[in-house]
């Protein structure tokens, strides 16, 4: 990993975050949407303990759905005026391109996850316990990294041409299933849902980390081929 590559990736990520700060698409559109999803879950499932028990899974479902919009936005700004193509044609290192997009996506998703976990406390009455905080944070971060890497791969694929946006959910959701399962179990253990112990959560964090690393490495290597359209 050359320093030049990391510098490029940092610059790419900073560019994405600057664009988000300017346009506020995620804050003004995606975040309200994910909040809405949480509320609609509550309507559908009603009260009486079901919500509290299902809360960890619902949070990650909402994250998953919202991450699709986030990925679409992230690559929409690259394709709107052919910027991604310019980068590719100019020979900008595709690994740096992948790492930069994934890093920006990870930061954006982490904000989303934090807000949604907070919403779960308010809306679903799930109280985090002190001994589970470390597990909660590790789970959130490792799951987010995996989702960001995954979203970057498929976002890059969907960015190639017209009519591909509709393909994104079909491609991402089945592959994201391990993240959904792992992150849900991890958060359940952290919160003590169904009287699970904190120690039960750590193997799931392991799974999430394996996933994030595998997808991250695979995506970095494959990204050049994927966007070479």
């Amino acid at each position, binding site marked *: 990993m050359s320093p030049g590559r990391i510098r490029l990736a940092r610059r790419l990520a900073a560019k994405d975050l600057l664009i988000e700060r300017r346009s506020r698409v995620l804050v003004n559109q995606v975040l309200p949407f994910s909040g809405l999803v949480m509320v609609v879950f509550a309507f559908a499932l009603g009260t009486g303990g079901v919500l509290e028990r299902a809360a960890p899974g619902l949070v990650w479902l909402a994250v998953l759905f919202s991450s699709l919009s986030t990925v679409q936005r992230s690559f929409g700004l690259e394709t709107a005026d052919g910027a991604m193509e310019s980068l590719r044609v100019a020979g900008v290192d595709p690994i740096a391109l992948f790492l930069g997009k994934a890093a920006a996506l990870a930061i954006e998703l982490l904000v989303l996850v934090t807000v949604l976990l907070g919403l779960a406390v308010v809306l679903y009455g799930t109280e985090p316990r002190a001994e589970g905080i470390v597990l909660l944070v590790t789970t959130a971060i490792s799951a987010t990294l995996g989702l960001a890497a995954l979203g970057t791969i498929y976002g890059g*694929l969907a960015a*190639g041409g017209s009519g591909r946006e509709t393909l994104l959910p*079909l491609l991402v959701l089945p592959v994201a299933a391990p993240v959904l399962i792992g992150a849900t179990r991890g958060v359940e253990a952290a919160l003590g849902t169904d009287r699970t112990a904190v120690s039960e959560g750590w193997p799931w964090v392991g799974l999430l980390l394996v996933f994030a690393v595998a997808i991250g490495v695979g995506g970095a290597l494959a990204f050049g081929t994927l966007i070479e359209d």
Partner: protein
Amino acid sequence: MTPSPQTSIRRATGTRATRVLGIVTLVMLGWLGLFGLVLSPADVDQGDAVRIMYVHVPTVWLAYLAFIVTAVCSALYLFGKRHSLGFDRVAGASAEIGVVFMALTLISGSLWGRITWGVYWQWDARLTTTALLFVTYIGYLAVRGLDGTRERRARRSAVIGLLAAPVASLAHHRPR
């Protein structure tokens, strides 16, 4: 293997070998029905439900075999020196076969489950993985349907074919 030019007009893409293979397959299918439904006895534990296994197990094996072929051919296309489009075509055709047979697996499996468990579907790891793999390869076929030149399609789908399978199977090897 050297037919006269007149007969080759209607031959489409078939060869004598594929035709023989097709007839053998039809005969074997009939045989399977005869043995599976009539000649073999009911199982001691499963009763008559075991008869579904005679179609269920071969289809799932075939589906997995087809997906392995897809993954291997994707790798051969991507990492091969000549980037031969032949591998890409085999990968795509194999994925189609895999999807069809995995659909059959899911259908016969859920019918078996209805008899044995009383429900069509149970959320255990193996069933979930199978369903996810099914959807993953539907996505793979959708990627193959995207616009672009043959080389682009081959590159894209090879990456997806290589990436998707192990990840979807990760749901199978989850910690207890």
